């Protein structure tokens, strides 16, 4: 569905993503893993057209740069790491903005299917009771759920997530990840995400791209990528040993 070839992102002289290729197919949850500064988020920004990049990214065979913004938004939804709201919009207003790409102009008010989709998204994320709440006064978890609801209202076939559960309590982390994995069960969908926490990557991912200093160290099926040797190279530590040690505390 989504394919990147020789993607390169530079900030000034600094190359943050170097000649990276990936292929996201239907049903896949592709995890971008790697230490801080590996270029994971920059790659996501390139895919969502947030930064200029070299190389080509294609969606269903067509260069994403050639899509109109609304066409692209109908197919790709993005949930970013840091989300906040400028003014005191209600939760419902923010979630309804997800319908922008589907119904614009004077007919926007009569988007029946859109209203149903918004309703469904609110219900799915458990925000129906908070629909009239002031978005400025939400907690971090509620805020992230609101933007997830917006993406669900947008109804894309590819979901791009940049650390979606960062700074969230465990209960919301679990909630959001299970929501997304439920969402992925419908045919024709795929997820590309940056996840810092290797535990989450291992539990929910199907495939992975392991990055270090902007380059790809390994990619493919999750089990083949997150091997002790690869992680040792990238993180410069015995990740498997550390994880077992952590787990042992709970037994």
């Amino acid at each position, binding site marked *: 569905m989504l394919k990147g070839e020789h993607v390169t992102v530079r900030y000034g002289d600094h190359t943050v993503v170097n000649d990276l290729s990936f292929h996201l197919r239907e049903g896949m949850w592709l995890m971008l893993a790697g230490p801080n500064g590996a270029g994971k988020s920059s790659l996501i920004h390139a895919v*969502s*057209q*947030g930064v200029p990049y070299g190389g080509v990214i294609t969606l269903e065979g067509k260069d994403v740069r050639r899509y*109109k*913004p*609304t*066409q*692209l*938004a*109908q197919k790709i*939804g*993005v949930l*970013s790491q840091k*989300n*906040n*709201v*400028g*003014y*005191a*919009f*209600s939760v*419902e*207003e*923010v979630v309804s*903005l*997800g319908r*922008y*790409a589907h119904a*614009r102009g004077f007919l*926007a*008010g009569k988007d029946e299917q859109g*209203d*149903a989709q918004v*309703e469904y998204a609110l219900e799915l994320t458990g925000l129906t009771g908070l629909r009239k709440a002031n978005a*400025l006064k939400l907690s971090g978890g509620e805020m992230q759920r609101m*933007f997830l609801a*917006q993406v669900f209202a*947008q109804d894309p076939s590819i979901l791009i997530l940049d650390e979606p559960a960062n700074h969230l309590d465990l209960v919301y982390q679990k909630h959001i990840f299970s929501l997304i994995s439920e969402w992925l069960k419908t045919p024709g969908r795929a997820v590309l995400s940056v996840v810092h926490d290797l535990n989450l990557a291992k539990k929910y991912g199907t495939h992975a791209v392991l990055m270090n200093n902007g380059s790809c160290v390994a990619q493919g099926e999750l089990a083949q990528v997150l091997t002790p040797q690869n992680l040792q190279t990238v993180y410069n530590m015995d990740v498997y040993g550390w994880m077992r040690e952590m787990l042992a505390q709970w037994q």
Partner: protein
Amino acid sequence: MKKKTDHFSWWMYALYALILAAVMLLCICVGSVNIPLKNTLTVMWNTLWGLELPQGVSKNIILKVRLPRVMNVALVGACLSLCGAAMQGLLRNPLADGTTLGVSSGASLGAVIALAFGVALPGMENAGTVGMAIVFAFLSLLLILSLSYVLDRSMSTHSIILIGVIFSMFTSSAMNLIITFAQEQVKSIVFWTMGSLSGTHYRHSLLLAAGLLVCGGIIFGHARELNAFAVGEDNARHIGVNVIKVKLTILIAVSVLIGICVSVSGTIGFVGLVMPHMTRMVVGPNHKRLLVSSVFSGAVFLMLADLAARTLLSPVELSIGVVTSLVGAVAFIIIFYRTRKAG
């Protein structure tokens, strides 16, 4: 499922229109010479339908002095308030407005240059001033935004406003420089920079109304996009807004409108800052309601400010900018304090 709508119902608009008409009549009746409401209504009604005017009615004061002035004041207030609302949404910054961002002073500089060097365009009497004010308003906005982008990639609220303030200082120096050397036109320039709508004519109303219709129409047409920008620019891009195109369109519409206002009335500070903000407190941040409400509140506020300027120290007439800036400065500090506390 209940029917949802972002717009007001018709009675809300009717209420706005009623308030607007009432304030307008008040401003026409009250002044150095008070005119009874009945006379005002008679004159306006009879003129509208081409009827004979009764004897002893101050026709000239109403039709030649007060009405054009009040109309222009209302239109300028509406335009400035609308521009402020649009910029505050677009830049996601409650302190954005023509004056704080330096657009108004840029427009003033353009107009002063046109006055001093006699820049003229064919077609209309003041076309040179209007044209230069519009061009300079847009260039200023472009310059300020690109400078703040270069200096601070995140384009934070504070850096944009800081640069706007510095730019305003720069333009006022440049203006003083021009005034120093433009001896012949000094009188007309100084009179104009004081910011006043006395002595404006119906043709100014026409220009302002046309500007409001065209630019305001463009801004109203982008209410949904403004909502998206007000939530966040990245989010706007993610949901499919053509960020650069929309931003540029709105900025051009805003600068044209500010340019027109400045060329008619000089710089009138703070209307665009205070009115959208106060309006937002009442109707909420949704631009489908906010924009139209700002137009009405801006018109009403500036008409009352003009009334105060005319009557408070009568027979001395204050500049309207004095009144708005006095109210505005206090409001600015309150807004700043509140947003800092919230953020």
